[in-house]
């Protein structure tokens, strides 16, 4: 289990993340979403043992990761900044990794390189951004880790590459019970792949649930709002983001479905119907509510 408790970290005396708690079991995929500058990369770098926490702990199966080779041998990190040494070829960088990781599988690496369609003789400096993203992911999987920490791993990948990435990730999680923590701006992918999701803003976690729980906690509706309904009335009844009063409007309610229906009836909303909601809409709404409450 990866346990992050009360994690705090900053740069040059400015806090970047505060009071982060996350728990990830093996075989679980945990998504991390947030706006730019929310602190996702800082959190992931601390989880990968690159940065030392200013406060709090990060433990894998009860052992701290920072400057601990025994733990790092079982953790693979895919960075958003793909800084390989460019004199290496694709095949050469595999040898580089193989030197450090006893569990590195050359057969797996070669198989994945073929699957992604990358030429192993090509020099890294000549690869495109998307190809380097794929290579970085391949190196991480070839390490055969117990935990996988990834910072926007699909960055620059084409649609086909993303599909292969998803398939491989799910295969590894199911077969090897790899625990995964990854950040992404593609919320559709996060919704599709993740078991649990942490939402961050300004260095803090403002929501953390399983994907199912998120889907049940916010409802999307279409209906006719009475003409005299005010925004304050709606907000006080946890109805949000209504577009247009008096016409057919789309709006959201925070809470379980039955409770939400009671609220809609109380407000006199007529002819309402439940709509399919996405994780992206939930994230946007919860972030907006968080800002409004502050």
């Amino acid at each position, binding site marked *: 289990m990866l346990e992050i408790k009360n994690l705090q*970290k*900053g*740069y*040059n*005396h*400015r806090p970047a993340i505060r009071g982060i708690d996350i728990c990830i079991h093996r075989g679980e995929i945990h998504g991390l979403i947030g706006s730019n500058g929310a602190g996702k990369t800082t959190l992931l*770098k601390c989880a*990968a*043992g*690159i*940065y*030392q926490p200013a406060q709090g702990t990060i433990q894998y199966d009860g052992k701290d990761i*920072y*400057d601990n*080779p*025994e*733990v*790092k*041998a079982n953790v693979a*990190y895919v*960075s958003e*900044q793909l*800084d*390989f*040494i460019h*004199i290496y070829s694709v095949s050469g960088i595999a040898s*580089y990794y193989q*030197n*450090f*990781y006893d569990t590195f599988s050359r057969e797996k690496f070669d198989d994945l390189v073929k699957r992604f369609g990358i030429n192993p003789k090509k020099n890294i400096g000549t690869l495109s951004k998307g190809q380097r993203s794929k290579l970085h992911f391949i190196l991480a999987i070839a390490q055969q880790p117990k935990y996988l920490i990834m910072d926007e791993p699909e960055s620059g990948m084409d649609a086909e590459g993303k599909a292969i990435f998803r398939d491989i990730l799910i295969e590894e999680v199911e077969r090897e019970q790899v625990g995964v923590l990854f950040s992404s701006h593609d919320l559709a992918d996060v919704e599709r792949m993740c078991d649990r999701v942490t939402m961050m803003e300004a260095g803090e976690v403002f929501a953390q649930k399983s994907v199912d729980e998120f889907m049940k906690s916010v409802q999307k509706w279409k209906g006719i709002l009475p003409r005299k309904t005010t925004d304050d009335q709606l907000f006080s009844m946890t109805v949000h983001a209504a577009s247009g009063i008096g016409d057919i409007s789309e709006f959201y309610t925070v809470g379980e479905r039955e409770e939400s229906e009671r609220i809609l009836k109380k407000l006199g909303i007529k002819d309402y119907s439940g709509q399919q909601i996405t994780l992206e809409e939930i994230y946007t709404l919860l972030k907006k509510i968080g800002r409004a409450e502050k």
Partner: protein
Amino acid sequence: MSDLKKLFKRDRFYWGIMTVVMTLVVVYMLTNTAALYHKLFHLEDYLERSKYLHELWDIRPELRNIDGVFSDALPYLLLEHMVTVTVIVALIAQAVRLLLQETQNRTEVLRIFPVKSCNLLTCHYLSGLLTVAIPLLIQAATIRLDILYVETNTEFIFLNKEQLWAYAVKAVIIFMLHYSLLIVCRKVTNHVPGTIFTFIVVELAMQVLAGYGLDMYWDNYLAVNNIPEWVFVAAAAVVLIVLSYIADHKKDCAGNGFYAFPIAHWVMMGIVFGEIYYIFYGVYGDIPKVLSFLVAIVSSVLITAGVHFITKPKGI
């Protein structure tokens, strides 16, 4: 040990290049030495060049008179040439290797691998030591053989062997002093511009101290009876090495390190200002004092401002 094995294996490309380069340097030096003593070129030309070199660098002003200088100038010249070429090549190679591996992003990449941080540091030190020490010792041994040949076949008496080895060992100590200072600066500043400027500031301070009589550098250092100063320099290198391990243990690679503290930043700017003023005041000996003062002030302000903007932490 297994960490160090992995790190040296990682750097095998670098070691391969260094072996080839250092072999060429040693061959070059041996060829020059052999050419000299087997009189493949005219001795008077070499003495003329050695006189010019000394005049140019003002190393030994008392040796400007060529007559009778052969037994003193030539061996020193050879040794200085040998050590300087080796150290310069080694320093350039190490700088390139460190630049490739120790920029901000690459340092973070290195932290991913299952290697203890102190072992990464040990690898840097061993790499630096081996790159300089082994070539120097090889060269000292090969030149000693050459000297033996000359002494056997002529009446000429070269340097005694203690001075030769002392000079080689001193070069290693001096190299480790500068190298460990560079690494400490890297560890406490966390970014390349901060590293370079901090290194220059401390180096200039050491030069100033040397000017006040500590004789920390090359001059008057060949004789083995200068042991106290020799030990002082070695002890300074050891202290810096220990500081680098402490800094490595205490500080990770996030942020700007030392320069993140505004007070430390401004103190460093004050020192930079003072040092640049000290260097530039009186550099043009034949101009009026007021102009000299202006040159020093303008240079100090401009250079300090440049250093400030490159190294300043956010919030200043």
